[in-house]
């Protein structure tokens, strides 16, 4: 982990020097260290600091600060040409609206915090258990946690209800994995059990590292009764985990509140700003400069004027006393104009933006099409500041589990003895599409059935009821061969705790069909077979590992037959089958292909009946192997291999790793919108890649897929460069513009421009290589390579790495990133990305609480982005363009007037018009525009994802558009000033009275301005709702009403010096000139805009314009049916991964650790079972004598805890499998060998997969084209034992010899070849890249012909071997 980034490393090193001391049950001592309590605070304000803090934050906004300064300027009478209220009123309104919004937001956060902080927990205090709130927990307290309770803080496990101090936890909130994990306390504390006296007397001292964010690392020393015990992270229960399957446990609080690993991993909650905000800040600065320039010009003008004219005009207007010369006057005028022209920076800009965003957020909350009925959750916009950014997303970083998939495994189909079940057929023999209405199979005959399980093929149940021997045997094997644990709190209501959801699905299926796995002890398994309880004696579990890809159990049936049941990856199992079931294998293989075609995860099930003598002999060997110190792993697998052969095929299962609804469709649409989707997952590469194919992130017709799996800087760099060489060879040349750019501009921050590859590529990188790639000198290489790929899969990622990838993208690319995830492991990523989307799923609330938008299904993302995001963006852009335009037109009028008013800072308008212009007269139309406008409706937005494109490049509002607004504003103000000016000159009303007085002129100009901007917005509005009409025309009407009010006799007589425009409205509004002026101004201001908009798509047609034209054509001629986008069917992929993320529970089960003292219960059930214990002594040395037992227990206890520790940790399972369990030299050596070069192994919870060389030597080839291995296929009857040196290929693997292959054969070939025993040495779980296993004379050609993976295969394969 320390490798992950340099800065992090430095900080960590610093931190590591600090050490945390604490003593149990000693609050006095612990309080001296000043550790925080367990309160979590995410809120920003309190009642007292709200006002100052909020105002401070608000005034950090450039515009607000500017208006504050203006306010002070206006208080200086010498320079203020405007009344104070012109600024104060708008500023007050703006500030209070924002403050109210902030306050509401913060109240919500307070409520959330309070809810968490006030949860209750049991604390051990002076020999008693006291209930206390979470927030009162202190470091050093001992707390009691119960089953299904979330862990309060990071606690050191002391003891639990389970034997050996074992505690099961679910870490979904932390790392997103839903399988159970085991933690074990050290023996000295597990002896405390639930003895409150002992617990409160426990005064162990802990010395451990200071708080950090490493989830899988903890080192410390417990000193108790003068002895030191080392602590590691297997003894630590982290906050956010949930206790499962454990009635109670006690723990010593180590880290609290902000120090917990959960909170440390959350990262800082930063206030997210959109690109638009940044752009606005820049533009506001530009405006300042522009403003300063104008003021400067006007001040100079004033100086000249005073010199030339003003000086001589002093008879009529003497200079103020403090004005000694025209220079002084000019300086004062500079500031006066600064105040007058302040409306260049629209004060209501920010508040309007906030309102618009709020409104558009509400639409998200209100959208029925993003409401997920099954969970009763509507979409939720948790922040209201990021809406328009939803319309600009370029990169989506997605979690896999729970986001793309439902994380639900469903037993979908099976093939038993050559008959396929599960594809529901109707009476006519047609396949039935499973939908909500499809009739489910009735399981009422089985009282123990799981009501949630559904199956749609009745034939299987009929077969079951008929008592079909094979079907029974199939389900018996499913109900026996697993490591699931059952819980039966209420009679008949079984709850299975499976280590992986796949296994759970299989056992649940067996349960429903009538083979109910009810309970187990270390030596027995109780199964209710069609209502009849039977107890099988568990003789051995041949556990699962990622290398073996299979697991077996050996049981003694009640009929005293020894049976082996095996399930595993078909590729492996089919080699171990007895030759007699060859024909069945053919049929089953075809079925498996069918299953794989549908993207199901498949397993093969087989059995073998072993004769007793053989078993006894084997059992002896097995226990010897178990006890051997040298090469134990090898010996074990040899022993296993002896047993697992000549298997009789039973059938195959197909489990659906259920994608969420509509995921592939969504991804297809997002891809069409040129949004790149990356999957960042902590899961295995295999699983991730499979899902990537299933949901269209990778496509079959991609030009290549690169796999980055380097183990050090150099190999990673090479891999990256090779990939880039393939995608865009010129990008490696010195002359490439990006390279030259990078060479010349090394300083930060710089942006890497978009590079276009020569095709569609995908890339897979694991967290381990990523750790190197993210280091300083490689990150640019990584970024450039990765950004050229269409789809990217990052697997085995830590939460922090997810964030780092996002950060990297943010740092070097001017793009909007979106992270979507559902678990606590996604929180850092969600926070890091520009937009964080949380899936309100099963994995807790962490992601949701930290997200900006919460949706309940991945598929809603398309609606969120393409409909809401797009609209928000378009609206925001229209709003900004219009807003700047109207303010420029409004303000620049003063500039023109200055040339005719001696630069004396005389305003053109009435002060009340200035006060109300932004706030009242023009605010509602623009709000209606930016709340209701739709350029195209939602159907078209989704139908043409290409319409999303302008947002990604920010085409609708950028600096260029801003300049256009400025130019338009200048032009409009020019027209609006000079037309009235020239018109009223020398003109009079019908009574001969002149109309060129200042007040009439003001009125004419401001009315004309208002008409022009209103017509302009009417033109911008494409979607005229009733509200738009009311707001737009209503505002104009309202202006006239206000006009008559402000200029009415009553008001003006009451405040003659404030309202000076008495009677102007009455006298001026009936002038024909005025209306002619307005018409002419409108025509002159608007026609050019219409003309431009008409001509622009003709001259410079953009893609969007073309689509718009098509849409308009279709809306006008509805006969043309829009073609539906059809989802291409993906090619079958046999999922070779088996059923577990981790090594199985086997060892644990047979060790008996998990079994509470159920022997007595079981004995009652099955007295024989208890008596058969000694038989197994040979299998596992288990001394019976109490004295010896105790002695042995110590040694074995430590040994086991070691094993368990590794097993439960997140570290790679293969390491665990192969790591030496004793201190044997050979084992150690081998472990060293295996770990060589895996620098990150200790820090990175990833599985160091060795992939340096082509991993399937059985079919591997050198570029020269000579086979390295005799092709002679061994006959299938002799399923080779997994001897390391002899490569095996079954006869039906034509491995490169026959070019005419069916797809199915091809797959089989691949699988078989890479499943060869060599894999034991070079394990790889990735089937797709094993295409390299083909032997061909000319690799590239032959592979092209043979291998459906085509070009990408070459891309990884050739350079590596060359």
């Amino acid at each position, binding site marked *: 982990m320390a490798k992950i980034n340099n800065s992090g490393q430095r900080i960590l090193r610093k931190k590591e020097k600090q050490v945390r001391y604490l003593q149990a049950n000693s609050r006095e001592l612990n309080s001296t260290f000043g550790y925080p309590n367990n309160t979590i605070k995410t809120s920003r304000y309190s009642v007292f600091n709200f006002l100052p803090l909020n105002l401070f934050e608000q005034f950090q906004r450039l515009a607000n600060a500017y208006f504050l300064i203006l306010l002070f300027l206006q208080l200086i009478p010498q320079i203020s040409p405007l009344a104070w209220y012109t600024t104060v009123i708008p500023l007050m309104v703006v500030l209070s609206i924002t403050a109210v919004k902030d306050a509401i937001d913060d109240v919500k956060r307070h409520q959330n915090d309070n809810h968490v902080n006030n949860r209750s927990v049991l604390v051990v205090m002076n020999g008693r258990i006291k209930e206390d709130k979470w927030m009162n927990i202190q470091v050093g307290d001992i707390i009691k946690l119960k089953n299904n309770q979330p862990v309060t803080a990071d606690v050191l496990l002391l003891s639990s209800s389970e034997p050996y101090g074992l505690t099961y936890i679910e870490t979904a909130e932390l790392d997103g994995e839903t399988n159970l994990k085991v933690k074990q306390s050290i023996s000295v504390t597990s002896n405390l059990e639930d003895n409150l006296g002992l617990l409160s007397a426990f005064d162990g001292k802990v010395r451990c590292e200071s708080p950090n964010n490493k989830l899988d690392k903890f080192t410390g020393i417990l000193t108790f009764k003068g002895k030191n015990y080392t602590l590691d992270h297997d003894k630590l229960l982290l906050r956010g985990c949930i206790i499962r399957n454990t009635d109670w446990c006690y723990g010593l609080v180590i880290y609290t509140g902000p120090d917990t690993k959960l909170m440390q991993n959350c990262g800082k909650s930063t206030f997210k700003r959109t690109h638009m905000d940044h752009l606005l800040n820049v533009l506001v600065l530009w405006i300042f400069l522009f403003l300063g320039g104008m003021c400067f010009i006007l001040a100079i003008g004033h100086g000249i004027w005073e010199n030339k004219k003003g000086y001589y005009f002093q008879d009529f207007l003497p200079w103020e006393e403090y004005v000694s010369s025209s220079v002084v006057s000019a300086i004062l005028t500079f500031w006066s104009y600064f105040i007058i022209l302040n409306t260049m920076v629209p004060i209501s800009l920010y508040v309007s933006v906030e309102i618009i965003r709020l409104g558009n957020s509400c639409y998200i909350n209100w959208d029925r099409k993003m409401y997920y009925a099954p969970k009763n959750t509507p979409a939720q916009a948790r922040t209201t500041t990021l809406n328009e950014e939803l319309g600009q997303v370029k990169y989506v970083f997605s979690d896999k589990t729970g986001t793309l998939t439902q994380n639900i495994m469903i037993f979908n189909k099976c093939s038993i003895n050559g008959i396929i079940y599960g594809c529901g057929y109707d009476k006519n023999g047609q396949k039935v599409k499973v939908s909500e209405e499809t009739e489910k199979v009735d399981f009422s005959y089985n009282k123990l059935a799981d009501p949630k399980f559904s199956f749609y093929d009745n034939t299987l149940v009929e077969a079951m009821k008929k008592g079909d021997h094979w079907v029974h045997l199939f389900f018996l094997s499913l109900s026996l061969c697993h490591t699931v644990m059952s819980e039966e709190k209420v009679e008949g209501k079984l709850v299975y705790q499976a280590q992986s959801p796949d296994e759970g699905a299989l056992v649940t299926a067996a349960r429903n069909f009538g083979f109910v796995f009810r309970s187990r002890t270390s030596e027995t398994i109780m199964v209710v077979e069609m209502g009849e309880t039977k107890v099988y004696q568990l003789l051995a579990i041949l556990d699962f590992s990622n290398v073996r890809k299979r697991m077996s159990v050996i049981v003694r049936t009640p009929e005293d037959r020894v049976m082996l049941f095996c399930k595993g990856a078909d590729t492996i199992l089919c080699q171990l089958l007895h030759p007699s079931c060859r024909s069945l294998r053919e049929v089953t293989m075809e079925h498996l292909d069918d299953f794989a075609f549908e993207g199901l995860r498949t397993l093969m099930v087989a059995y073998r009946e072993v004769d007793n003598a053989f078993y006894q002999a084997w059992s002896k060997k097995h226990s010897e192997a178990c006890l051997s110190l040298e090469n134990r792993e090898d010996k074990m697998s040899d022993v296993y291999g002896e047993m697992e052969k000549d298997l009789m095929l039973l059938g195959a299962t197909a489990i659906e790793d259920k994608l969420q609804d509509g995921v592939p469709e969504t991804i297809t649409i997002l891809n069409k919108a040129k949004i790149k989707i990356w999957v960042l997952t902590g899961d295995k590469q295999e699983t991730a890649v499979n899902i990537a194919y299933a949901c269209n992130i990778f496509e079959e017709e991609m030009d290549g897929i690169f796999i980055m799996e380097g183990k050090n800087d150099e190999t990673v760099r090479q891999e990256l460069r090779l990939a880039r060489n393939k995608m865009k060879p010129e990008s490696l040349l010195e002359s490439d513009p990006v390279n030259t750019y990078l060479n010349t501009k090394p300083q930060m921050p710089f942006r890497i421009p978009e590079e276009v590859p020569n095709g569609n590529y995908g890339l897979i990188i694991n967290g381990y290589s990523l750790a190197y790639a993210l280091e300083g000198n490689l990150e640019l290489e990584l970024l450039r390579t990765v950004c050229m790929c269409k789809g990217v899969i990052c697997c085995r990622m830590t939460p922090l790495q997810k964030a780092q990838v996002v950060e990297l993208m943010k740092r070097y690319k001017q793009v909007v990133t979106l992270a979507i995830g559902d678990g606590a492991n996604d929180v850092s990523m969600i926070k890091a990305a520009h937009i964080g989307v949380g899936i309100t799923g099963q994995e807790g609330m962490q992601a949701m609480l930290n997200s900006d938008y919460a949706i309940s299904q991945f598929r809603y993302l398309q609606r969120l982005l393409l409909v809401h995001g797009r609209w928000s963006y378009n609206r925001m852009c229209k709003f900004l363009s219009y807003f700047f335009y109207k303010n420029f037109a409004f303000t620049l009028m003063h500039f023109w007037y200055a040339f005719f*008013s001696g630069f004396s800072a005389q305003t053109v308008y009435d002060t009340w018009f200035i006060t109300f212009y932004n706030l009242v007269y023009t605010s509602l139309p623009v709000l209606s525009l930016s709340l209701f406008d739709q350029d195209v409706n939602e159907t078209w937005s989704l139908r043409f994802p290409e319409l999303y494109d302008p947002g990604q490049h920010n085409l609708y509002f950028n600096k260029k558009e801003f300049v256009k607004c400025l130019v338009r504003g200048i032009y409009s103000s020019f027209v609006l000033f000079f037309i009235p000016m020239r018109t009223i000159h020398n003109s009079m009303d019908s009574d001969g009275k002149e109309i060129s007085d200042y007040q009439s002129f003001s009125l004419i100009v401001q009315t004309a301005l208002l008409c022009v901007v209103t017509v302009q917005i009417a033109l911008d509005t494409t979607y005229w709702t009733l509200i738009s009409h009311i707001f737009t025309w209503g505002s104009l009407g309202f202006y006239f009403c206000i006009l008559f009010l402000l200029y009415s006799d009553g008001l003006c007589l009451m405040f003659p010096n404030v309202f000076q425009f008495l009677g102007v409205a009455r006298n001026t509004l009936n002038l024909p000139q005025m209306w002619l002026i307005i018409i002419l101004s409108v025509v002159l201001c608007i026609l050019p805009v219409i003309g431009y908009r008409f001509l622009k798509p003709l001259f410079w047609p953009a893609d969007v314009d073309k689509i718009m034209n098509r849409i308009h054509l279709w809306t006008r001629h509805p006969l043309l049916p829009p073609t539906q986008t059809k989802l291409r069917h993906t090619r079958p992929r046999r999922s070779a991964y088996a059923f577990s993320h981790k090594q199985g529970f086997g060892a644990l089960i047979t060790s008996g650790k998990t079994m509470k003292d159920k022997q007595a219960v079981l004995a009652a059930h099955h007295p024989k079972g208890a008596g058969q214990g000694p038989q197994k002594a040979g299998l596992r040395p288990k001394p019976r004598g109490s004295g010896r037992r105790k002695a042995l227990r110590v040694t074995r206890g430590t040994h086991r805890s070691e094993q368990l520790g590794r097993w439960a940790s997140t570290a790679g399972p293969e390491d665990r499998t192969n790591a030496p369990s004793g201190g044997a030299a050979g084992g150690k050596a081998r472990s060293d060998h295996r770990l060589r070069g895996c620098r990150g192994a200790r820090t990175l919870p990833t599985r160091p997969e060795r992939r340096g060389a082509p991993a399937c030597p059985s079919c591997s080839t050198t570029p020269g084209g000579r086979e390295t291995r005799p092709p002679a296929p061994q006959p299938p009857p002799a399923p080779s034992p997994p001897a390391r040196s002899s490569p095996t290929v079954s006869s039906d693997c034509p491995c490169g010899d026959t070019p005419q292959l069916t797809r199915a054969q091809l797959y089989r070939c691949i699988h078989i070849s890479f499943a060869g025993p060599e894999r034991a040495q070079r394990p790889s779980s990735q089937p797709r890249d094993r295409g390299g296993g083909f032997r061909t004379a000319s690799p590239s050609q032959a592979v092209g012909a043979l291998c459906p993976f085509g070009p990408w295969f070459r891309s990884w394969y050739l350079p590596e071997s060359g």
Partner: protein
Amino acid sequence: MTAKMKRTSEESQSRLPDNSALKQQQLPAYRLQLTATGVLSGFFATGVFCLGVGIILILSAKSIKEIEIKYTKICGNCAKLREDATNFDKECTCSIPFYLSETMQGNVYMYYKLYGFYQNLYRYILSRSNSQLLGTDLKDVGTCAPFSKSHDGTPIAPCGAIANSIFNDTIILSYNLNSSISIEVPMLRSGITWWTDKYVKFQNPRSKNLSIAFAGTTKPPSWVKSVYELDKEDPENNGFLNDDFIVWMRAAAFPTFKKLYRRLNRIQYFTEGLPAGNYSFNITYNFPVTRFRGEKSVVLSTLTWSGGSNLFLGLAYTVTGAVTWLASFSMMAIHLMLKDRKMFFIQQ
């Protein structure tokens, strides 16, 4: 987990958002689309309209008769006299004969016009007290600086720079019936202000005798007479209600402006307007303009519905109409030319 499930089942009320058109963004609406025909016909129509209006305006403006005589230079000696402020009490008159070749039909209005007089300076415009002019509080000279109080502290009425700088030339138009007899053209000095100004905005303090009412105030420094002695002939035309005063107080928007001075009283010879013939302006020259390089002129003008003799609006309309028409033609050409290209894109 189970507890959570229970809780959700208890929250049985659906959180399904309302199905209202507003919330679902489905409000019935008209979609505004800029179609080619719409835009082009709009351009055509606008062009026609503007051309029409423009021509009408030009024609009506042409029908106006107007005479303007700049008299700063003609009355050069008077102008010179006024340059020295100490000569304020010396009267200077100046007669300007002119010949009217055509009869000025209908109502004729006489204006004085100032060039380069900045009535729109910020401090100038501000320098008045509306509350004082309302007659309620003569002593309210709030924003009148620098002419709010005299040296001895008495408030000035009317205060402020505007009032102080009132145009105080007297212009009398004489009609020479023949070479020997000249008669003064009868002029009305009423009805030259806005009704609202005369009857609402400006009010004299309530008192039978204006001089008593204005007691305690002093006249503006440049004024020769007090505010209540402005019109000796018509006692009603005094104080703040003096028409010339009210006209002056309505500050002009631009440095060149004209203000209505008198209107023709259509009696005797003048029922049809001003007949052609010899006239002369007899001007009592008081108002100094040469100091700030300004100019004064006197204007006689008739009237039409569209205001004065200003051709600008008519020309602007005509030009706009013509350009719009041209633009619509060229746009149509471009549209027709590029239409095929566009169709190609659509079919793509």
